[in-house]
């Protein structure tokens, strides 16, 4: 692990509201996108000359297009409910990371140019010109919001800071001030098909390797097909699932579940990415262009169903927006939800009794579950309210003997962000990521002490990578984060699987 050149927060037994340290994170700003990364997304390469005027025009356009944005900017009554709800405030102590503080960075500009009082008496209503200093402040603090929407759960008016930070990023992109991490990645999807830039041959090589590994482990020929026309299901999954650990262990699990279900499925090189960073930068045009790739792949491969792998914000885009972004989906099989989450798929099979598990395969772990923000607060699973909380937990309980939840105020709809969501999972924001992870690390640390939890499962590629990176800063091990379908993979008994040793263990269990 890299040495920290900042203070890593201490983990405490109870959540504390820290004393304010104004400007504590004013220095934090991600790398700015160069012209090469801006162009393919349709943004100016660098700060345009008449940037102030164009930014105000853009803000006017967004206020007209998104009524919600105007309501959010108008309706705050400064009640204070949100102030201690943001993980970045709790971890950094910077008042601009209080949701209301962050909103006010845009609100003061909005008031100056779009309200009567602000136009004539700016000082009386806290309105401010859109100066270079304000723009710099925007760049810094709107890249300290992971758009997790925890604050909106507590706001009596339902003000959604995520939408405000998306609008701010869209305005900045439109005047040539983009963030390198997000915009370079979106360009890679356009050029190659996924965030990582994995070309088809590399994907095929990786998948062949997985087939070999699973065969070596189980003696069963589980396939990991790609670009197979006529398959029933198209699996769209984050490209980190091919590349990183523990993500790939989840991908192995999806393949085993499809195998046991006896359905044909395929990945696609064209749509080899579930993530949609267009949402993070608030760009509808880019979000739509990214989502269209899934439609194109589904048509080209003549699939009947679409299933999404473990990716938090992808599931928000898929569950909430896919129909308007890339529909209509009338060519898919109407008997299944469009799209379906891999957890829904696996859970259905478990309920039908079609999967057999040997839970003891996960006995080296005591699990807890991290609800990923976009799944928890911006989507659903199954056919009942709260399915997005219950279904992943039901899968863990079906595959593991030992499971304990973290403190109630840190899970389900009140879950804390991992600290790396919303386009902030980049090394140039490491201080922010480590500090922002504090509330989650604290809850994990407590459940480890109280219940002996050893591992935390998640269903989001960003969460998994973020925890792999930040756990060591808190004295924990990077291996403590696992994929939910990794647990499925460990416990699932494939038909015809070699399991001599396991059989013996099971027999001895029964004898005991």
């Amino acid at each position, binding site marked *: *692990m*890299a040495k920290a050149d900042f203070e890593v927060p201490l983990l405490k037994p109870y959540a504390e509201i820290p004393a304010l340290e104004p400007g504590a994170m004013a220095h934090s700003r991600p*790398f700015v996108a160069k012209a090469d990364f801006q162009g393919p997304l349709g943004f100016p390469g660098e700060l345009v000359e008449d940037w102030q005027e164009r930014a105000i025009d853009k803000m006017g356009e967004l206020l007209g297009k998104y009524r919600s944005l105007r309501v959010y900017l108008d309706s705050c009554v400064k009640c204070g409910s949100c102030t201690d709800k943001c993980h970045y405030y709790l971890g950094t102590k910077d008042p601009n990371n209080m949701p209301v503080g962050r909103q006010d960075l845009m609100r003061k500009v909005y008031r100056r140019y779009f309200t009567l009082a602000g136009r004539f008496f700016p000082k009386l209503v806290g309105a401010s010109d859109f100066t270079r200093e304000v723009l710099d402040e925007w760049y810094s603090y709107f890249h300290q919001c992971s758009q997790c929407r925890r604050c909106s759960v507590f706001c009596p008016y339902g003000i959604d800071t995520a939408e405000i930070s998306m609008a701010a990023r869209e305005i900045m992109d439109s005047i040539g001030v983009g963030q*390198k*991490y997000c915009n*370079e*990645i979106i360009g*890679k999807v356009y050029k190659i098909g*996924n*965030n*990582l*830039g*994995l*070309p088809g*041959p*590399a994907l095929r*090589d*990786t998948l062949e*390797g*997985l087939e070999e*590994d699973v065969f070596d482990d189980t003696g069963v020929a589980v396939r990991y097909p790609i670009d197979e026309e006529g398959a029933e299901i198209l699996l769209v999954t*984050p*490209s*980190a699932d*091919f*590349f*990183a*650990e523990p*993500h*790939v262990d989840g991908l192995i699990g999806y393949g085993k579940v499809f195998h046991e279900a006896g359905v044909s499925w395929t990945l696609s090189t064209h749509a080899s990415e579930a*993530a949609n960073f267009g949402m993070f930068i608030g760009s509808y045009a880019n979000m739509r262009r990214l989502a269209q790739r899934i439609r194109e792949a589904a048509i080209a491969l003549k699939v009947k169903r679409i299933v999404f792998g473990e*990716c938090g914000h992808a599931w928000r885009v898929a569950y909430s927006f896919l129909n308007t972004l890339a529909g209509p989906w009338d060519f898919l099989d109407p008997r299944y939800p469009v799209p379906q989450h891999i957890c829904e798929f696996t859970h259905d099979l478990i309920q039908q009794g079609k999967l057999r598990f040997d839970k003891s395969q996960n006995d080296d772990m005591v699990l807890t579950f991290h609800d990923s923000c976009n799944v928890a607060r911006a989507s659903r699973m199954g056919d009942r309210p709260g399915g997005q909380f219950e279904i992943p937990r039901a899968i863990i309980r079906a595959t593991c003997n030992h499971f304990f939840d973290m403190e109630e105020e840190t899970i389900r709809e009140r879950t804390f962000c991992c600290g790396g969501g919303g386009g902030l*999972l980049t*090394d*140039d924001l490491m201080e922010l990521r480590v500090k922002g992870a504090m509330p989650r690390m604290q809850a994990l640390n407590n459940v480890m002490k109280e219940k002996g939890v050893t591992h935390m499962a998640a269903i989001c*590629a*960003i969460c*998994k*990578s973020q925890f792999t990176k930040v756990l060591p800063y808190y004295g924990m091990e*990077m291996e403590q984060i696992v994929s939910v379908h990794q647990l499925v993979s460990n416990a699932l008994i494939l038909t015809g699987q070699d399991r001599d040793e396991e059989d013996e263990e099971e027999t001895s269990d029964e004898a005991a």
Partner: protein
Amino acid sequence: MPIDVNGKSLETDEEGYLANINEWEPEVAVVMAKEDDLALTDEHWDIINFLREYYDEYQIAPAVRVLTKAVGKKMGKDKGNSKYLYGLFPYGPAKQACRYAGLPKPTGCV
């Protein structure tokens, strides 16, 4: 910020990755490792060379599992895991080893 390698000044990006992969030479890895207070051993070079060969063929760094499997095959199963790689490259095999090898930084949710 450019780095000086054998009297030449080579351009790098904000995060220290070589701007032009074709300018790579073994000394690049040595210079970068020195800045990180790391002395390169044969074990490091095995990884760096594998990364470059893989990149030549696929235009991308290998997935972690592809890398650990190749290392395991070549150097023994006990070394075919991330722990061994992190032992060699504390900043992470994908990010630190790729940088030394002159490869672009893997981007995305990794």
